[in-house]
């Protein structure tokens, strides 16, 4: 009787392997939470170089210094343009609030006008300063959204030799889909360090839109840090390489750096 029971259980296991495999995979929500729980340090300074390459191979390079600091759960980010020299001094400031229902506050300082313009952050699906990432992509910074998608964890794959969970995400409703500019995403999240390693996304019409690959991930001052992001837009064949260097999580950044006045005074 006992033997029959064991055989029966084994048979069930053989008949429904997928079900038991799915049960062993963490939910999308828990993976999203883990990407947000990752240590990012309180403050950070870095050089961010954006290389924009169009379909004919023409390359434009923008170098920036980027400063970030947490004020409690509120994240503030300031980006100062270093090149091209003719737009040097252009600076961008964001207050990213923990409540997802509250829009970020954003300012752009334009040295040609010597004025700081307030910018709406409502259009989070707009492209960030001519690159192939949206404002929302930039804001998430290799984390995945906790609120915008219904996720399904579909398996595990190796990305550049690193075991990663594969998730499919669909925006929770049409309004969110329109805001984000995506109808579907497929994400590969590192199962060990909980960092996004790759993402595919589809536009609102369902066309394959772009692929994002995050590489050269290593620890800096004990914090897992990406050093390169490559984004290819399959519709326009435009590509952006984000290269990150001079990363410092221990530098002291004054609170005053994240003010409109600081944008005017520059670095």
């Amino acid at each position, binding site marked *: 009787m006992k033997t029959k029971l064991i055989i029966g259980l084994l048979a069930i296991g053989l008949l429904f392997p997928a079900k038991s495999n799915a049960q062993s995979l963490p939910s999308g929500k828990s993976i999203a939470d883990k990407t947000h729980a990752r240590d990012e340090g309180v403050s950070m300074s870095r050089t961010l170089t954006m290389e924009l390459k169009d379909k004919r191979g023409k390359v434009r390079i923008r170098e920036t210094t980027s400063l970030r600091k947490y004020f409690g759960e509120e994240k503030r980010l300031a980006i100062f343009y270093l090149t091209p020299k*003719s737009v040097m001094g252009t600076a961008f400031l964001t207050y990213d609030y923990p409540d997802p229902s509250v829009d970020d506050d954003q300012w752009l300082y334009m040295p040609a006008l010597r004025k700081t313009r307030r910018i709406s952050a409502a259009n989070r699906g707009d492209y960030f300063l001519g690159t192939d990432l949206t404002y929302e992509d930039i804001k998430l910074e290799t984390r995945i959204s906790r609120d915008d998608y219904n996720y399904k964890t579909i398996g595990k794959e190796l990305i550049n030799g690193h075991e990663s969970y594969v998730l499919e995400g669909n925006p929770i409703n049409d309004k969110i889909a329109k805001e984000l500019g995506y109808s579907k995403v497929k994400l590969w999240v590192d199962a060990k360090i909980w960092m996004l390693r790759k993402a595919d996304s589809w536009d609102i019409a369902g066309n394959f839109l772009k692929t994002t690959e995050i590489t050269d991930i290593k620890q800096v001052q004990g914090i897992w840090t990406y050093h390169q992001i490559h984004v290819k837009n399959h519709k326009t064949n435009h590509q952006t390489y984000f290269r990150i260097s001079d990363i410092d999580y221990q530098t002291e950044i004054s609170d005053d750096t994240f003010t409109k006045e600081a944008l005017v005074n520059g670095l």
Partner: protein
Amino acid sequence: MLQKYKIAIVLLLSLAGANAQEKQNKFKESFKASLVVTSDFSYEFNSESLQKSEIIFKPEFSYRLNRKSKFVLKGQLYTELNDNLEAGVPKENTVSNMSKRLFIGDRTNLELREFYFYTSIKNILRLTIGKQQIVWGETDGLKLLDVVNPQNFREFILDDFEDSRIPLWSLKAEFDIKTIGVQFVWIPDNTYHITQDFDAPFFTKSLFQTPPEGVSAVFNKTLKPNRFIADSDIGLKLSTFTKGWDLSLNYFYYYDDLPVFYSQLNISETNSPFIEINPKFERQHLIGGTFNKVIGSSTFRGEVAYIFNQNLSSTNSNASRGIETSNVFKSAIGIDYIKGENIISAQLFSDIITDDISPYNRDKFETNTSLKISREMMNDNLTAEVLWVHNANHGDGYVKPQVSYWINTNTQLFLGSSIFYGNETQLFGQFKDKSRISLGMRWGI
């Protein structure tokens, strides 16, 4: 023994070498230099000739003493090949000696655009001392609170404000009181607007009353303030960001950057009547404020300025020396709507003379509007925009379409036009024969 000395010398030299290398590396890190070159060639439709052919070299140097202090120097070499906008060597009577340009012949001049020391003292007080630009206000195109620095009107208001604004020797001190940012400015530099001569392309004749037929006009020397302390300007700005609102309150005690043209009818020794004009700069008080707030995809912004005792040319024959005085209330509200790569920006300006006077060539209540539409294309490679400024009272204005294109990382091309329309006695209409098409380039390294 000798061997020991040799070793010591080698060690010292290597230490000195390492020290020198360290110093060199530190200098490299602290010192930054850049150069931007712009060129702009404009063809005037009416005269079928080149109106402007300028090439500007803008070197910039900064040296950071430490994380909180830096020196910044911005120079400029300006050349106008056809010597048209500011023909010859201008006298610059309205410019203080310490801010004058150095002319090399008629076509070229050197200018120290900015030279200042910035420091943050214990993260409490931020000081900027030296020649600099201080800009207030929220509006584009027309100025309400942006009156701290004067302007060169060699191209009326077509030139980029960055180029036309005249930097001044001044002190800017910034500190915070709780959540309120305080900015104090002190400007001992007695430099005022550079207006153009009668025969210059952008001479603003609408400002001057034409003498009656047969009556000549004599311009006397402009009385310009020249006392370092007593004639300096001071300003205060309080600003805060609360519940999504950016707010500022501004006060400025200053000399109006345009002189008051006191005039009176005289009789010459030969018994001929003539108008004697005595320009003089006068003091004013200004209080004002700004706000902006984002709602959805739109940014609402506004600016107000109330000027006490503004002197205005008058048509009232009883006016003392042709001038009447009134308080003036100026306001502007604007909206910037962003959708994808498109920005629509609209502004409504009002200018009200509060006293019962008879101003020359303007209504007591004037309204201007502006509309700017711009679109970024090809991952911000190409930008197309059009600006339209219109005076509702007199029906004059101008339209300025422009496209710009990045041909590589460091080079941007511009093609644009400026088209004035309206009655030629009015502010914008007077330049309708100055409408032009422009081609320019900006390159930096």
